[in-house]
């Protein structure tokens, strides 16, 4: 569990340029949750997630991981980074070894594990993200965009994280690459109970996968709750440069044009069910013409 207590982060503190990138945040991330973190570019999402794994230190406040202050002087932050894994934006730019297996072994090696342990962890991680043994000796640079990204995720998984933070893992991927990454993340959450924090610009992805949405603006959370509660607040989302999923707008349009439906559905399948519930109204409308 991660507890965030009244945390601030100030860039260029003490100068005239000081900006509060994170502004008094208090929240809790329980084990096993699948969280979607949304907010426009520059709202503070990346700063926030980098504080969670100790890459940057908060200017004030406290972050507790399983009850311990991660910024305490004698806290083992290297260990923390293996528990709270962070997959950066465009992680494929960080692949550098001559073959995939060696690349994925890099993280565990840094933890000081034995060669054997590193290899077995790397292999397991690569299998988990869908690679076969014959891929292990391939150069990371010969992979497709989606494969590279999966290799990069394997690099973090090999550290056996309890929390996995992904900063826009699907940016630039085609729809199939996107689905394969998100299905993978969702499976890690369900089968291994890994806590997931997914930073995303795609409202459709967030609507389809997560349990909880946190909406960030100007360095703090303005909304926090299950997707159905968040996406009904379309006006508030648009005010901060976001939107609801495409399908929400479609349902609102149908409602505005007289179909008496509930606009809470977040996926097209749910929306179809909701519309079909009103079949009789639709048929009545048609016969009236």
């Amino acid at each position, binding site marked *: 569990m991660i507890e965030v207590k009244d945390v601030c982060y100030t860039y260029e503190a003490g100068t005239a340029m000081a900006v509060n990138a994170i502004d008094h945040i208090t929240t809790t991330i329980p084990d096993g949750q699948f969280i979607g973190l949304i907010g426009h570019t520059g709202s503070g999402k990346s700063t926030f997630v980098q504080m969670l794994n100790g890459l940057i230190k908060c200017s004030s406040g406290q972050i507790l991981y399983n009850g311990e202050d991660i910024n305490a002087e004698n806290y083992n932050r290297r260990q923390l980074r293996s528990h709270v894994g962070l997959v950066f934006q465009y992680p494929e730019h960080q692949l550098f070894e001559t073959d995939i297996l060696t690349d994925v072994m890099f993280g565990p090696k840094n933890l000081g594990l034995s060669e054997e342990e590193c290899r077995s962890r790397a292999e397991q991680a690569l299998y988990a993200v869908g690679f076969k043994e014959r891929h292990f000796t391939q150069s990371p640079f010969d992979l497709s965009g989606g494969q590279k990204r999966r290799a990069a995720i394997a690099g973090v998984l090999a550290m056996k994280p309890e929390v996995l933070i992904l900063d826009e893992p699907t940016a630039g991927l085609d*729809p*199939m690459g996107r689905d394969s990454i998100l299905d993978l993340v969702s499976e890690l959450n369900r089968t291994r109970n890994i806590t997931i924090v997914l930073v995303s*610009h795609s409202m459709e992805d967030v609507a389809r996968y997560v349990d909880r949405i946190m909406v960030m603006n100007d360095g703090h959370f303005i909304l926090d709750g299950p997707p159905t509660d968040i996406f009904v607040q379309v006006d508030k989302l648009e005010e901060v440069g976001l939107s609801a999923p*495409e*399908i929400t707008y*479609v349902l609102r349009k*149908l409602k505005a044009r*007289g179909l008496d439906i509930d606009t809470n559905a977040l996926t097209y399948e749910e*929306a179809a069910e909701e*519309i079909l519930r009103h079949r009789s109204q639709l048929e009545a409308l048609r016969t009236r013409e």
Partner: protein
Amino acid sequence: MIQIRNLIHDYLRRDEEGNVEGSHRAIDHVNLDVHPGEFIAILGHNGSGKSTLAKHINALLYPTEGTVVVDGMNTADEQNLWKIRQEAGMVFQNPDNQIIGQVVEEDVGFGPENMGVPTEEIWERVNESLRIVEIEHLRKKSPNRLSGGQKQRVSIAGVIAMHPKCIILDEPTAMLDPSGRKEVIRAARALNKVEDITIILITHYMEEAIYADRVFVMDEGRIAMQGTPREVFSDVDRMKELRLDVPQVTLLADELRRKGLDLPAGILTADELADALGLKEETDVRKQA
């Protein structure tokens, strides 16, 4: 405006001594005509050849076989190089890689300055370009303080200032948040409708392709589908086969049709769905109320 005839492009793989080891056919016998003032969208999964095709249009790549003619000029003829790059401007995915100036107006003026345009006219062009993409208020700002959508509009303004007849946008919204995506697509549509510039938009967002006059879908270096957005998106199954999506509203309409509602294929907007369902115009509903 653009005639592509029997275009083939092979990427060569070389070993350490520079000998050709093998080749990969990225473009395989493509024929494509773009007429002046058209808005074209190119879709396709990662690695399908979209970007390779686009790079032929402004002579960043040359055909292995076949010809590409831009506004009467063959791209294989070196004499035409600069003229072609000025007439067919290109905007890439990552705005941070294409902005060079310290101040917005300086960045936008860089292209025309490089072309040897007289100073006075450079300023006229800068003013006009900033106006078209609606960022006049940002002209004195430093580009690295802007949002993603604003940066991408600076890149577009920089291209417009070269007075191109055609602009190729290669996944210009992949790295942007929802409001940034809207800004960029609005700018592209305005360039097409108001300034009559030919637009070629490469994207993974199906919702962005519905504004195009014609859509081309690429697969394995060939054109797998082409037609109006309605024609292309009507074939939901074929699009899925090609590892692509269709817009959410099209999926919803398709699902409703499968469940027995009598709807036409290729519904692209919420209004079209409402019409097809027999719902009255919004204004009529209000009048009745």
